[in-house]
């Protein structure tokens, strides 16, 4: 279906194609707006690459199919939007607990409850704090263009495999449904996966493999948690990603991701043109959060402005990072509304006055 290497596709399709090019050969999904073009795309694309597409009877089934496919040695993908991701949390906790890889796309929509199908970033806490029951973290990547949806899907496939951990691709309705030109990376010939720990049948007298999160023996779960926590600590130091725009000398630093970051970036450009020392730090990994980079900039930037489409979720991570060394303000929208550029520009002027 995709022949040209530079194509006009939605962020959703870009994430799907990125996953394919990153080696994904197993996709399990369920319809929910605004991510329906992902299962639709995969239903055509997977057969082309010799992969498997299956529309499950529920979000629970879709994530459980991922559980099984990952246990058998694949790096599967599933996708959904906010209410569907809540349903998947059971399986995500099991994936984390069993140390299984999967790429999970959440095209965020407004909530709580059924909410609406428009743009929101209200799942930040859910995404960055594990989301399901128990102590665990998912790697969370937050693209802000269709190109980045593709690139971070490729990366997400490899990080999931590398860390044996679920990777969340966190976008929003606008990033997901908007079409932009995307330069596609080459299609890897091989599916990722097939590790030596997978369930393959215990052939040749090798010791059996059993994949489980249940730890019933005394102290077994303590030791298992210690192992997981050590992994999360390594992930937290090795997998921090962010983009800094005009940040080094910024007296006012904006912090934003996804759709909010597109607007924040334009506001920074406009403010610079007016001679203001304003910059942007755009977290690309939301977990691990680029706390170190923000803390470092807090010396120069005595003020920070978080732009996000929630009641104020990421702003808490920014406040934790600066630890009182900068004034942190919030410009936010919620309930499906998107911040307006003039409002961000006005707030910048007010904060610098």
């Amino acid at each position, binding site marked *: 279906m995709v022949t040209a290497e530079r194509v006009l596709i939605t962020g959703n399709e870009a994430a799907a194609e990125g996953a394919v090019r990153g080696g994904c050969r197993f996709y399990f999904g369920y319809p929910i707006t605004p991510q329906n073009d992902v299962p639709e795309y995969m239903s055509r694309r997977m057969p082309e690459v010799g992969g498997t597409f299956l529309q499950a009877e529920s979000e629970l089934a879709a994530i459980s199919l991922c559980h099984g496919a990952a246990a058998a040695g694949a790096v599967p993908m599933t996708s959904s939007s906010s209410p569907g991701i809540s349903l998947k949390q059971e399986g995500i906790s099991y994936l984390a607990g069993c140390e299984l890889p999967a790429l999970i796309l959440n095209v965020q929509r407004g909530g709580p409850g059924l909410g609406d199908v428009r743009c929101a970033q209200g799942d930040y806490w859910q995404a960055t704090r594990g989301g399901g029951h128990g102590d665990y973290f998912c790697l969370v990547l937050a693209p802000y263009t269709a190109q980045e949806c593709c690139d971070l899907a490729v990366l997400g496939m490899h990080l999931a495999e590398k860390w044996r951990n679920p990777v969340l691709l966190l976008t929003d309705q606008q990033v997901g449904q908007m079409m932009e030109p995307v330069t596609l990376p080459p299609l890897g010939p091989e599916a990722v996966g097939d590790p030596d720990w997978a*369930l393959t*049948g215990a052939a040749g007298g090798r010791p059996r493999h059993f994949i489980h999160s249940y730890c019933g023996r005394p102290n077994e779960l303590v030791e298992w948690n210690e192992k997981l926590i050590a992994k999360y600590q390594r992930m937290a130091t090795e997998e921090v990603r962010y983009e800094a725009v005009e940040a080094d000398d910024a007296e006012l630093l904006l912090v934003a991701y996804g759709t909010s970051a597109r607007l924040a970036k334009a506001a920074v450009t406009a403010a610079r043109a007016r001679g203001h020392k304003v910059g942007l730090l755009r977290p690309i990994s939301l977990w691990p959060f680029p706390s170190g980079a923000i803390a470092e900039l807090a010396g120069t930037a005595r003020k920070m402005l978080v732009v996000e489409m929630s009641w104020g979720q990421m702003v808490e991570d920014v406040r934790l990072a600066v630890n009182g060394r900068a004034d942190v303000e919030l410009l936010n929208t919620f309930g499906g509304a998107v911040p307006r550029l003039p409002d961000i520009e006005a707030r910048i002027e007010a904060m610098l006055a």
Partner: protein
Amino acid sequence: MTDTKLKFKAGRPTSLLPVPTHYCPGCGHGVAHRLIAEIVDEWDLRGNVIGMAPVGCAVIAYNYLDIDMCEAAHGRTPEVAVGIKRVRPDKLVFSYQGDGDLAAIGTNEIIHVANRGEPITVIFINNTCYGMTGGQMAPTTLVGQRTSTTPKGRHLIGEGPPLRVCELLSPLERVVYLERRMLTSPKEIRLTKKAIERAFRVQQQGLGFSMVEILSPCPTHWRLPPEQCAAYIEDRLTPVFPVGVIKDTTSAARA
């Protein structure tokens, strides 16, 4: 109940690990495990089989069966099995599930996996209660049966009659093989093993979905001495859950 003509089959199947199980005295799980282990040995399946352990009494079945196994969230067991089977279609994949897992929280999964005709085999242990959590009412609990959540017995009105899963799945087109057996005597245990073998063969031939339901004793929560459980199954369970082949479209599926 005793069959003097039967020879004692000495020893332990290699695929059944030499460890004591956590099952209560008189429980049927150990017997069902052994049947699987015997088939794995006799068919030399160890390198070609992957099993699913459920949430419930059999949660650590992977500590007893010396084969590749996976855990699942409660009720999702058959879909996790399908995920494995889709990646490894050449392996024999079975899910081992209790009645809470399969017939309550996982009803959605079992219906859709069966309806799609996924070529996996389900071994369904029906002991008419939730064993591990303390003997609560299961979907399979008999009307009038006392459990820890039906202290006066299950009421038809309000709690409904026992759910008969084989009969529920039977009309589905791509369900190829359904048999219900019971662990009441050496003869019945042999028939149970034969049923599992037939179900495995259906899978190996790629014909579609297969399931063996096993009426299995739970003396602890039935509050019966183990030796009275067989009679209880025959007298009380089989009128509701008749044993035998419920559905077999093997020849049609092969054609």
